[in-house]
């Protein structure tokens, strides 16, 4: 219960002021009015005291008023003696009225205050619910909860969430006994208080943030002296809101994780399905040719035998390339994987790539035009080599005429292009060209599905791009653009 005037000294001063004013006014109008009117002045003073002050002050004021009326105005005046029974009754009634009014007023005021408090709490719950519904992290929920608790129960109120191991997080501000109380809440998923061990501190209550059988943390509050059960109820309501918000967040998180996992699974399934298809064909050839040699060698002509051996070798080499590409794609799709970059010479990488593809190019269709004195690149040479081998392999596979390989520096970019005279790639298919296993089997050729995806991933890992354009006169031109970094000077020329 709180009075309108808060400071005790001020309240007593107000009592004295009221009584003095009533007495002065009574004395002033004394010549003109009867005792009844003067008594009414004191009743007014007592009413005012009831309205503005606490029950104790109002009672004292009533007693004082009766005493003052008796002393100043009831004959014989200037004494506390009362000569007529009528006056005695009047004084007694007045005391009764004053006391009753005071009790009524205080009761009413208390109810109003309670109503206002519960209205404020209802509003707080509503606001918190709105804010929580917009929150997107446990961190935010904690901040909102801490603020709401502090607003409702003062700065000693605190809140702690559980960490991923379902233990209470380390909050430095938490007193050990409060922490122990919270841990009890987590264990039991129940509030602790006087009737449930351990009792933390007098009037401190810990409540779990529990929802659907899961506990997300705990709150600790200091119960006020007045209306402790309503306060506890409010604390429960706040805790329940916070727990619901945390439950919603954890549901969202597990839903996202499940969706991500499903997507990964789908990508992996597509990949495995495609790669096992790409593996099965060459394996079938190898197995067919080798078992044929095993069982029918006597009946096969030397030419036929040589052809079978040739098939085995070709298919095995193809499987090697496929394995390399798969390996590089797996490496590049791992975000933790760093490139092994060093200063590299384009001429050398081209030279090494040509050395690798020449066995498949007996007619020497590939013609390279690499100018001297190209700048060095900061690059992973193994990956760039693989990129070039893939592009050249494709060009050899998908075209029959000459294949161009040229390099050029344009401002801060180096362009390395492979041009063929194949059938070209329709504009509608270009976007899909660089996605793993998106290749349409238009040509009846196999194996390019992974190769271009690897090329694109390698280009992007180097901060560059890979693009395909049509050539005038037919065919495609695949161009790799790589950034040229400031060249490292020779510190000395030994």
């Amino acid at each position, binding site marked *: 219960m709180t009075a309108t005037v808060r400071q005790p000294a001020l309240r007593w001063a107000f009592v004295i002021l009221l009584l003095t004013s009533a007495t002065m006014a009574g004395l002033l109008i004394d010549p003109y009015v009867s005792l009844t009117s003067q008594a009414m002045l004191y009743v007014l003073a007592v009413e005012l005291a009831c309205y503005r002050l606490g029950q104790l002050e109002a009672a004292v004021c009533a007693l004082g008023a009766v005493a003052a009326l008796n002393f100043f105005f009831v004959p014989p005046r200037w004494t506390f003696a009362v000569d007529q029974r009528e006056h005695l009754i009047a004084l007694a009634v007045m005391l009764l009225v004053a006391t009753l009014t005071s009790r009524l007023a205080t009761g009413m005021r208390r109810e109003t205050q309670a109503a206002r408090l519960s209205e404020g709490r209802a509003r707080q719950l509503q606001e918190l619910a709105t804010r929580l519904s917009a929150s997107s992290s446990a961190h935010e929920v904690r901040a909102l909860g801490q603020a709401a608790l502090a607003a409702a129960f003062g700065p000693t109120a605190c809140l702690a969430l559980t960490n991923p191991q379902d233990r209470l997080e380390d909050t430095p501000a938490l007193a050990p006994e409060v922490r122990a109380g919270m841990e009890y809440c987590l264990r039991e998923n129940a509030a602790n208080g006087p009737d449930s061990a351990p009792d933390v501190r007098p009037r401190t209550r810990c409540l779990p943030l529990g929802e659907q059988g899961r506990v997300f943390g705990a709150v600790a509050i200091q119960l006020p002296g007045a209306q402790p059960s309503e306060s506890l109820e409010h604390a429960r309501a706040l805790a329940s809101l916070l727990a619901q918000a945390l439950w919603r967040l954890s549901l969202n998180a597990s839903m996202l994780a499940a969706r991500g996992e499903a997507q990964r699974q789908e990508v992996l399934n597509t990949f495995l399905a495609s790669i096992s298809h790409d593996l099965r064909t060459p394996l079938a050839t190898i197995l067919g040719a080798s078992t044929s040699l095993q069982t029918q060698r006597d009946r096969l002509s030397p030419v036929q035998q040589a052809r079978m051996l040739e098939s085995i070798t070709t298919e095995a080499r193809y499987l090697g390339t496929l394995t390399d590409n798969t390996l590089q794609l797996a490496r590049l799709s791992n975000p933790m994987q760093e490139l092994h970059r060093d200063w590299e010479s384009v001429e*050398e990488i081209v030279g*090494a790539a040509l*050395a690798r593809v020449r066995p498949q190019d007996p007619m020497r269709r590939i013609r390279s035009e690499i100018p001297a004195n190209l700048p060095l690149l900061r690059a992973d040479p193994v990956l760039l*080599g693989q990129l070039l081998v893939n592009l050249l392999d494709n060009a050899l596979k998908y075209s029959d005429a000459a294949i161009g390989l040229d390099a050029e520096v344009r401002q801060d970019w180096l362009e390395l292009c492979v041009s063929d005279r194949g059938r070209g790639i329709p504009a509608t298919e270009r976007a899909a060209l660089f996605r793993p296993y998106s290749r349409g089997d238009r040509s009846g050729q196999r194996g390019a599905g992974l190769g271009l995806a690897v090329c694109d991933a390698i280009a992007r890992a180097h901060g560059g791009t890979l693009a395909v354009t049509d050539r005038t006169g037919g065919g495609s031109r695949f161009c790799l653009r790589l950034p040229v970094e400031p060249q490292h000077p*020779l510190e000395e020329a030994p």
Partner: protein
Amino acid sequence: MSLRVLVVEDDREIRTVMQSALAVEGFEVVTAVSLSEAQALVRHSAPDMVLLDLGLPDGDGTELVREVRQRSNLPLIIVSARDQEAQKIRLLDAGADDYLSKPFSIGELLARIRVALRHRGTALEPAVTLHELDDLSINLGTRLVLRAGQPVHLTPTEFKLLARLVRSAGRVVTHRQLLTEVWGEAFSAHTHYLRLYMGQLRAKIEREPAEPRHLLTEIGVGYRLATA
């Protein structure tokens, strides 16, 4: 007496294929399936050459390479898969003679073995001082480099670099080995020196620098002077 080759390989199929292919070529083959077995065989069966597979169950082989190098210049060829780059380079820098990437053809394997055997004993005998292939001739003694009969003028550093490759002709020489031996220990990470000087050498020696015949690039590992 035939030369004895120690094949260290834990996969039975490859081991069998290598064994029979080498036996056909007249080598005597001993096999080991682990590093510990290989160490014992190196000590007790006196092989003339070792083919060491990476990714054995009991270690990465660095220890074996060090041990072999401390005592002899027994030729040692690393057989590695493509995803074992770092390990391969470490073993080459530790003193392995050459490497071969899986999958390989028997032809490649035999070529590597021939080169390694040719260099056998170079620590005791005079090092290779003369190199000739196609129209290129390099004489380290007279410091004369001829291309199609015409002398090629090289700067001292270019010559040092070429000479280092000639001494290991046919074998890979790692970036680190070239940088430390030509420029010095402090330059072991200055790959760009190597790129620039190799570019200059190719421009002077090769007909088509972008598709070299002599100065071959082993991507990410080093260089090799072609011998065939």
